[in-house]
Structures are given as C-alpha cells and as structure tokens.
C-alpha cells in the first residue's frame, strides 16, 4: 500500500490524539447545546436529553465497531478447526496459549505495544495500557480458512513486519482502554487486562 504512510510509534501517538480530539468534539457538539438549552429553558430538558443521548450513541458506536471488528475464535467444531488451533497453539508461547484457549484472542508483544489478534482484526494496547487502537485486517481470499488459521495468518504477518501490519490494517477505533473493555464480550476482557499489563 504505497499510498499509505508507514505506521510508526509517532504516527500512532498522533492518531490517538486525533481520535481524542474527535471524541472531545462530539461531546462539545452535543453537550454544549444540551447545557445551553437547559440554561435557557429548564423545561427543554427532554430535548437536551435527546441531544446528549445522540452524542453518547456516536461515541458508543465507534467503540463497538472497534470491539466487534476483532472477532475472537470460539471452540473448535470440526477437524480442520482443531488442526488449525493446534498449529496456532504451537506458534504462540505457553502464556499466550492459555489466554487463547480462554479468550479466543492471541497475545503478541511487539515494539508498538501488546497486540491481541483475532480472526478479522487486532487490538493494539499501547505501552502503559491506557490507550488502545483497534484495527480491521483480514486474510486475502481467506473465506474458506478455519478461524484458527485466520488468526495464524495475521499473527505471522504481524511478527514479520509489525509496522507494515499496522499500515495495511484499517483503523476502527482508538481511545481509552476502559471504553473498549465495556464493549468487548465478557470472555475476551481478560485478554485486554493481560495485554494492558504486558
């Protein structure tokens, strides 16, 4: 993807700030008129509530998109999937194998932070654990692959070239880790906690 600037530690930090500015913009855009309305006419409270609700919904949808894009793997249901998960287990370390079995996400430590890799995307937890970036990325023509193999594909690509991986992947969301935690399925949350500590 020559038209995309190669991702780096600095570019991710910059993108994170832009996402934060965007979130603040949404809060101000909907929150300010809501507050103004109540100040002018307290009886306009329902309209203020609708405005506020709209703003919250926009923020909520963005995080949900990030959380759903990753897609954890579930328990193996056929032979191909068992074979794929077996190989994936061999590729990851002991600690990541346990986490994979529990949460369906593969933990991989990199220079940019700790990654949680799923079937169709990855979550990057930045050093310190307070900010996440959600990426949407898939295997080219990979519809026929068992879910475990899709994760193995993405994991290998990530190990080969972490910055290249972050460049190719599309951004879904960047923001505070706690916001993403709310939207992740309960089974996947321990993976986010582990990655935040990594």
């Amino acid at each position, binding site marked *: 993807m020559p038209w995309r600037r190669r991702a780096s530690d600095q570019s991710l930090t910059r993108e994170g700030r832009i996402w934060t500015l965007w979130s603040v913009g949404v809060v101000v855009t909907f929150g300010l008129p809501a507050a103004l309305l109540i100040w002018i006419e307290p009886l306009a409270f329902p309209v203020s509530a609708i405005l506020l609700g709209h703003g919250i919904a926009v923020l909520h949808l963005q995080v949900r998109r990030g959380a759903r894009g990753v897609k954890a793997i579930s328990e193996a249901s056929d032979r191909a999937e068992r074979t794929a998960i077996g*190989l994936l287990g061999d590729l990851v370390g002991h600690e990541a194998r346990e986490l994979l079995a529990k949460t369906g996400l593969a933990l991989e430590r990199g220079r940019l932070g700790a990654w949680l890799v799923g079937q169709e995307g990855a979550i990057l937890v930045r050093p310190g654990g307070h900010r996440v970036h959600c990426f949407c990325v898939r295997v080219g023509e990979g519809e*026929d692959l068992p879910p475990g*193999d899709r994760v193995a594909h993405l994991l290998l690509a990530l190990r080969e070239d972490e910055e290249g991986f972050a460049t190719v992947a599309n951004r879904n969301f960047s923001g505070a880790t706690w916001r993403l935690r709310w939207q992740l399925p309960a089974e996947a949350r321990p993976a986010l906690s582990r990655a935040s500590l990594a």
Partner: protein
Amino acid sequence: MSRLIRLDRTGHTALARWTAADVASQQAAVEAFRRELDEGMLASTTLPDGSAEVVRELPLDADLVVLRRPIAGG
C-alpha cells in the same frame, strides 16, 4: 525433521519434510516451496527472537516454514 506447511481450508497441509542428510527430500521441498510461491503464497519462518521473516528461498536449516496468503485491510 524440518517441515514445509501451507495454511489452508484443512487447517494446514504438510507439503514436504526434509533432513540435512537427505538431499532428495531437500530438493523435493525446494520444488514444492517454489510452486507455492509461484501461486502467490508467502513463506514465513520464525527467528530465534520470536519474530518471523518472509523468505523467498527455502531455508533448509529452519525447523518449520509456513506458507500463508497475503493480508489486506478489512
């Protein structure tokens, strides 16, 4: 024994196995490797530090070489 595997719809398929002592098995592995690369697969081998490397020639000293498809933004 070293292995060349392809990630595919079956989970994975072992395409070749070779040893340092068996030249014929090495040649068969190299041919299988080239065939897969010609079909657009990427080959990856894990390095001692845990990272991986894309290879264009079959590293005969590697334990495991994995063939995978390219990735794309979702």
